[in-house]
């Protein structure tokens, strides 16, 4: 058994790299597009906000595999992209719809009173967003975003459907060769587990590090303490 595991590792790691690339790409596109959708929905006019809502409704109602296959087939018609690139696009579009929701919540949690206070200082709406809303919204968004990271990491395995040689597909090849599918899928599952656990831990650390100090922790006022008033 150990021989099979040892033999499988190099190819699984090769697949892991593809998995990571797809997750990073999908999350990145999802982040940018999701933020854009959230802003469109919250600050856009009726038409713009409506389009953002419509996008979310449609994308969230279609199974990811269907979206993935549609994009893959569509892409073949226009400009042949690799399977990996198609997966990244599909994951990005899909994740954007969910990330838009979480950003909307995170932005909405910043009190309107602070917006008023910012406007009273003579800030433009853009300045209020940049210096008051965004810094707090980003902090609010970390826990749900960490959840989204875990989901997208696992969703990359659907790349299997369009032939992207990500980790699960590599496992499939090896399973076919060695006739030990259960072993291989268990091994792959363990790698996903480590991946997701690691990502969640890292984001948990980031969340803690940038958390706004609460009443419980008294600020450091001694000379030379870390400067807290940078934004």
């Amino acid at each position, binding site marked *: 058994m150990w021989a099979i595991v040892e033999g499988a590792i190099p190819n699984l790691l090769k697949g892991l790299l593809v998995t990571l690339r797809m997750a990073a790409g999908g999350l990145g596109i999802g982040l940018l597009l999701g933020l854009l959708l959230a802003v469109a929905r919250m600050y856009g006019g009726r038409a713009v906000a409506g389009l953002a809502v419509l996008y979310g409704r449609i994308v969230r109602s279609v199974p990811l595999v269907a979206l993935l296959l549609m994009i893959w087939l569509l892409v073949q018609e226009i400009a042949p992209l690799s399977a990996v690139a198609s997966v990244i696009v599909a994951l990005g579009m899909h994740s954007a719809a969910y990330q838009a929701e979480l950003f909307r919540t995170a932005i909405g949690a910043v009190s309107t*009173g602070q917006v*008023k206070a910012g406007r*009273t200082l003579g*800030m433009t709406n853009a300045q209020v967003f940049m210096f*008051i809303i965004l810094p707090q919204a980003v902090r609010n968004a970390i826990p749900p975003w960490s959840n989204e990271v875990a989901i997208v990491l696992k969703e990359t395995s659907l790349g299997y459907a369009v032939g992207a040689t990500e980790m699960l597909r590599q496992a499939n090849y090896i399973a076919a060769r060695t006739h030990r599918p259960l072993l291989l899928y268990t091994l792959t599952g363990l790698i996903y587990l480590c991946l997701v656990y690691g990502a969640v831990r890292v984001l948990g650390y980031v969340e803690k590090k940038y958390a706004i100090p609460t009443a419980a922790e008294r600020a450091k006022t001694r000379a030379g303490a870390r400067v*807290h*008033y940078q934004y």
Partner: protein
Amino acid sequence: MPEPECIISIEDLRKSFGPTTVLRGLSLEVSRGEAVVIIGPSGSGKSTLLQCINQLTPADSGRIVVDGIEMTGSGIDLNAARQRIGMVFQDFNLFKHLTALGNVTLGPIRVRRIPREAALERGKHELERVGLGHRLDHYPAQLSGGEQQRVAIARALAMDPSVMLFDEPTSSLDPTLTGEVLDVMRKLAQEGMTMIVVTHEMGFARQVADKVIFMQDGVVVEQGPPSELFVRPRDPRTVAFLANFEALWGGGEAGKRP
């Protein structure tokens, strides 16, 4: 003595929210250096009036001039005009992700584009002025309500305002904390800051106000120095309102208590 210079002038201000009319042709003048206290029952339009002065709430009609700038004029740079109108809210509205000093310096650095070092110096000075020199690096969540409100006052002062608007600044505070905020405001009035204060603190109105304005149903019912308005109110609505206070707080509170 020269005629005091009029710094805020409001003429025939009207504002409705949907079917609800809040301000019905309100007119008001404030002189430079004057401390004006507005009293009146809830829903009389006091807060709306303050928010119209800096056009946080756009007026339906009427004319508002603050320090020579017509706030209701078309094509004015509201953001520039608002820099000179400090505002303090009932709920403090501090920026939660910034320290006291960060709150006080955000406007000067980002809006007035003052160099960071100078802004930090000025910010420290303003916080010391409100008695918070030892709280520079504290976040809002680490401050008491009274301290938060004093940071909010310092934040407004750091913008070099020509007038300060206070919208029920002590209504969320318990009596001890109310005192420390009122002390800061009293000092500010003594230093000659032009201020409009909406409050239910009759003691403060009596001691600090140059002029008390009684508002009801979206208009100014009666105005005058506290020694007049509290002692010899003329309009029956003012009499009724003050009598209510006496009923609550004991005989002659508004008029007699120091």
